[in-house]
């Protein structure tokens, strides 16, 4: 019964996120032309020494967008990362607690409230991370953001339960190392396969002087984003599995150094 309710919650969350993703893929030509005007604005103004009204004073347009025109985004991203790490540190302290004084329950770990919330959040975080990675070419996000989000899920389980629980759930040292390498291989495959058609490395769409026709950009009314979709997913695998690998490596280091482990 409880399992069924968790599954139901996961399905509802998945459906809602898919709805958001699908709605995000419908763009009108009107939006596209406005985006183009925005690009022109940035290119014209970023380092325009003759018209300094809107300039950023930096010859690097991408960094200027990052820290000047859209600086608020960057500040919020940094703040989110800061808060996330602060949360991780708190979780680390609380999981240190359970080593010192007596265990609260038979299985060890934190209280039943935290465990129940972790179960729900685990499913939601996994869905969200895949979602962020898979439509990262439409909305902000992408492989790196999705992978880092994915890594939070096992970290929560480590804090609420134990590292053994993560290993029992199927996050193995070897398999995460293999998945990480598989992600990098997929990345290389997507990047290099245009060469077979006498195209360029990292080629996405059809370009002049290239035999490669380009990765598919549309599927009916949906945008596919050419190679970006595959690159995002491959990077999601690499980054997510790398973080999991690092967490597990710390655990095994703990064991090798003679610590009792956090069982």
């Amino acid at each position, binding site marked *: 019964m409880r399992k069924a309710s968790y599954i139901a919650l996961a399905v509802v*969350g998945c459906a809602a*996120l898919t*709805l*958001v993703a699908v709605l995000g893929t419908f763009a009108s030509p009107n939006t596209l032309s406005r985006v183009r005007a925005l690009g022109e604005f940035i290119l014209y103004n970023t380092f325009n020494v003759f018209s300094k009204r809107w300039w950023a004073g930096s010859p690097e347009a991408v960094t200027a967008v990052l820290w000047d025109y859209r600086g608020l985004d960057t500040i919020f991203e940094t703040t989110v990362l800061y808060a996330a790490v602060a949360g991780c540190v708190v979780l680390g302290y*609380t999981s240190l*607690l359970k080593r010192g004084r*007596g265990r609260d329950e038979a299985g060890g770990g*934190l209280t039943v409230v935290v465990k129940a*919330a972790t179960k729900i959040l685990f499913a939601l975080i996994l869905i969200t991370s895949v979602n962020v990675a898979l439509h990262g070419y439409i909305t902000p996000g992408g492989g790196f953001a999705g992978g880092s989000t994915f890594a939070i899920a096992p970290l929560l389980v480590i804090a609420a339960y134990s590292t053994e629980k993560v290993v029992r759930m199927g996050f193995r040292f070897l398999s995460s190392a293999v998945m990480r390498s598989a992600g990098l291989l997929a990345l290389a495959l997507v990047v290099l396969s245009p060469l077979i058609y006498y195209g360029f490395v990292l080629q996405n769409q059809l370009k002049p002087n290239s035999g490669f026709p380009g990765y598919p950009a549309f599927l009916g009314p949906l945008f596919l984003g050419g190679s970006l979709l595959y690159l995002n997913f491959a990077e999601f695998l690499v980054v997510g599995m790398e973080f999991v690998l690092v967490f597990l490596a710390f655990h095994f280091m703990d064991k090798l150094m003679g610590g009792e482990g956090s069982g």
Partner: protein
Amino acid sequence: MVNAVVDQVLLYVGMALVTVGAVYDLIAGIGMARFPNFFVRLHAATIGAVGGAALPLVGVALIALASDQLGPYRFGVCAVCLLTAAAILITAPTGSHILAYAAYKTHASPRKPCIHDALRKFLEEGEGG
């Protein structure tokens, strides 16, 4: 005609929820400043998170549903708001619970003034039996 009425109702209910959320935030702010110790301040902070963030998000979802100028995007905005509200409803109480638990167990915060301490009895029973 019916659509317009429904839109108006959604708009006003949503705006009312946002306003109530602002009041909750004010109460939470006063509580953070005036409450005597960590544990009751945590209570005030959670009021700010649940009443002052989750509730206005539900209001924003209703307002988005009533905003026809957003086109199909209004459903996306509504879904994101409701999901975020649900996530806050799950995480904020859990977070304050575990913060209070950690502060209690490490004696990181003075437990004065203390009117009722149910956790001590629970922990003593647990360790005794």
